[in-house]
């Protein structure tokens, strides 16, 4: 009693702390099973808070299908094992070792978690390319990967260059033509914060529509409801677009393998095509990061970006799907985002988005 009167806040924090810890402990084997946790660095209750960040709430413990929810969640977000940390960690030594999860079922590793519904690409290497093209009207002749990601690459969040530059070379063989700004009158741009910069710091938004949001990923792009627009599906149903420009991929680095990313990216591109069969789809290579970032970041580096660009470039058929790489316009000789063009080593400074726009004007499909 004395305690309650004299030190109520301390008591409340102590009791809620114990409660949260118990909840976290209870959910350890179900809803929080996928959370990374280091007992030396943080209390057990931190998984509960990290869970909330992933839309996992403690009361789901009491829901009958809690376990299934968690399982679905895990499946729906490949490689995102609740570990929000990897992107900020620098140096391979500091990665949490997902060993405990991996070892019991090593078979899962090379092609980690997949989408639950019959995935268009189970394992790109294992299936004939015809199997990739489920949707009628999707052009054939997509390139196959040369190899699979290795276990080491997966564990170290390295995006393996499994396609080589064949796709990039084929895409570059197309003769793009110079267009004027009216070209963008029926264009739709879809992308992450980089595309936000293109929208806000060039006059392209006077012509084109933009569905873009900071931290957008290929995993979220079809579900996201864009402020003032709605979902991609709604937008494409409401207006006939002649061109769709897509740039996502930087946020996905460190998550899953090149195969995972490619599978989802293929699904999204095919879905866009299905929703807007007449639109030309511009697959934009992920913009690289600066040399400083490249040299200091184990995840957000240009090796990983180039590997994924090599993958998505293979989707270009130079008829309906085109691959263009803005890095040609904004990188230095070493292939890094030019240092003067960026403050945070990742985004173009407002004024340099003009280079991107200029590049797009040079890369129209007549």
């Amino acid at each position, binding site marked *: 009693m*004395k*305690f309650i009167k*004299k*030190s*109520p*806040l*301390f008591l*409340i*924090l102590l009791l*809620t702390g114990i409660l*949260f810890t118990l909840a976290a402990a209870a959910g350890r084997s179900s809803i929080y099973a996928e959370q990374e946790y280091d007992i*030396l*660095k*943080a*209390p057990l*209750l*931190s998984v*509960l*808070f*990290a869970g*909330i*960040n992933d839309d996992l709430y403690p009361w789901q413990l009491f829901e009958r299908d809690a376990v299934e929810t968690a399982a679905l969640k895990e499946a729906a977000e490949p490689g995102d094992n609740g570990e*929000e*940390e990897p*992107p*900020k960690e620098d140096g391979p030594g500091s990665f949490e070792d997902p060993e405990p999860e991996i070892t019991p079922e090593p078979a899962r590793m090379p092609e980690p978690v997949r989408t639950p519904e019959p995935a268009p690409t189970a394992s790109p290497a294992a299936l004939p390319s015809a199997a990739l093209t489920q949707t009628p009207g999707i052009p054939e002749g997509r390139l196959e990967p040369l190899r699979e990601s290795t276990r080491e690459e997966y564990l170290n969040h390295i995006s393996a260059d499994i396609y080589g530059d064949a796709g990039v070379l084929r895409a570059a063989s197309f003769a793009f033509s110079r267009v004027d700004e009216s070209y963008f009158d029926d264009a739709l741009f879809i992308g*992450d*914060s*980089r595309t936000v*910069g293109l929208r*806000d*710091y*060039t006059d392209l938004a006077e012509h084109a529509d933009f569905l873009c949001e*900071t*931290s957008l990923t290929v995993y979220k792009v079809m579900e996201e409801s864009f402020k003032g627009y709605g979902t991609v599906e709604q937008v494409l149903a409401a207006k006939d677009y002649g061109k769709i420009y897509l740039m996502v991929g*930087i*946020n996905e680095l460190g998550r899953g393998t090149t195969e995972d990313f490619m599978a989802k990216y293929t699904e999204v591109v095919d879905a866009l095509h299905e929703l807007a069969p007449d639109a030309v789809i511009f697959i934009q290579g992920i913009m690289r990061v600066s040399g400083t970032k490249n040299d200091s970041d184990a995840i957000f580096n240009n090796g990983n970006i180039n590997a994924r660009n090599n993958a998505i470039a293979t989707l270009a058929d130079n008829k309906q799907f085109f691959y263009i790489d803005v890095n040609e316009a904004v990188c230095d000789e070493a292939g890094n985002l030019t240092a003067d063009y960026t*403050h*945070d080593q*990742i*985004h173009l*400074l*407002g*004024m340099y*988005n*003009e280079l991107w726009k200029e590049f797009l004007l040079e890369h129209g499909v007549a």
Partner: protein
Amino acid sequence: MQTIKDRADFMVNFSGMEFVFRFFPVFLLVYYAVPRRYREFVFLAGSYVFYAAGELVFLPLLAGLTVLNYLVGKKVKEHEGSYIVYRWQKAKRRRLLVLSLVLDVGVLVLFKALGTFVDNSLLPLGISFYIFKMISYQVDLYKGEIWEQTGFVSAALYFSMFPQVVSGPIMRYNDAGDGSRREYSLEHFEDGLKYFVIGLGMKVLLADRLGILWNDLQMIGFQSISTPLAWLGAAGYSLQLYFDFWGYSLMASGILVMLGYEFIENFHHPYASGSISEFYRRWHMTLGSFFRDYVYIPMGGSRCRGSRQILNLAVVWLLTGIWHGNGLNFILWGAVLGILIILEKMCYGRLLARLPVIRNLYVLVLIPLTWVIFAITDLGKLGIYFGRLFPFIGGAGIAVNSQDIVRYSQNYGGLLLAGALLCVPAVFRFYDRHKKNPVIILLLAVVFWYSVYFMASSAGNPFMYFKF
């Protein structure tokens, strides 16, 4: 202030999970488990563990300076004399003081220079703060102002105590004392916890979130921000800095209160000030009083000719600028403040004091502008920013999006309003009157766990939120 930001990922960050849920609870248990007479020792040991976790390589420097300062101080105390103080004793004490000052200031200047001209990593953790405490200790001993016992453990603890070693406040030895005046009670502990929770909330829920605004402006490039956004940015940065530092000071002092010490006030609602001089009597008060007591007054302070007084103020503000960071902008920042304060003293201070609302506006406009100088280390970019603030003096801007203010005021309006509200002293008077009210206590518990939510999901790194 620089030091906190550069080392945000260590355990030494009070708003990190490791500190709040690992180091501090364990330390508290040990501290309160041992008998009173060993608590200073436990505190000292804990402080060394803390410092070692932050920056092991420079621990010997702290320890070495501690021993030297203790030994010199001991000699000074021995020659204090009793009823009769001999001339030779006075001279000896003076020589010892000079020796210790040369040592302490020399080491500080040396490492500041290394940090500035060689590599930032050569600037030892918290050196600006613990050396200032050593200087304060020596001068107070020399002046005979320290009445408490100055045992080795007490002195070493004063220099290195973990709540203050990284970023202050710069407490005086007399405020720490020898441990005989501690108040160990549940009520006192609860008070300390409340300070800590409020400070944590300010840091995590306000400062860290507002920090993203300033980073966005840098990402866009100052040449491309609209004039309203430039002003919003200046306000945002001012509030960020305030709650970062005030929050940190509250956490540090809250911890000390939880350990039985008295509360050390470091900020007293500076934004309610009516002049720049007053602002700096209420902002980082322990630093201001350090410069007042150990630089300004020994030089003659205000009790001398006008020109000498100007010189004294100029010296203090130049030193303040240099102390805050290694960059020309910090000197410029100190110089601008020095000039404003001199002008207030010599020209319009009295007039200003008679103009109630105007004097507040004067502070609220000028102080954020000085923080912009503080924030931007690149003088070229600083020029661009001022060009955007005052476009009529020739800052046209490139690729400016005139609508940017709409989006940013939507995203940050709530935080800015909350911050502005906490600049009002009446809010805290209300809190003081009702701090035992169950609603307030529940609110604090919510602030704590909401902060923990951000800490857990960002793992101490606010920039996690900056997904691309």
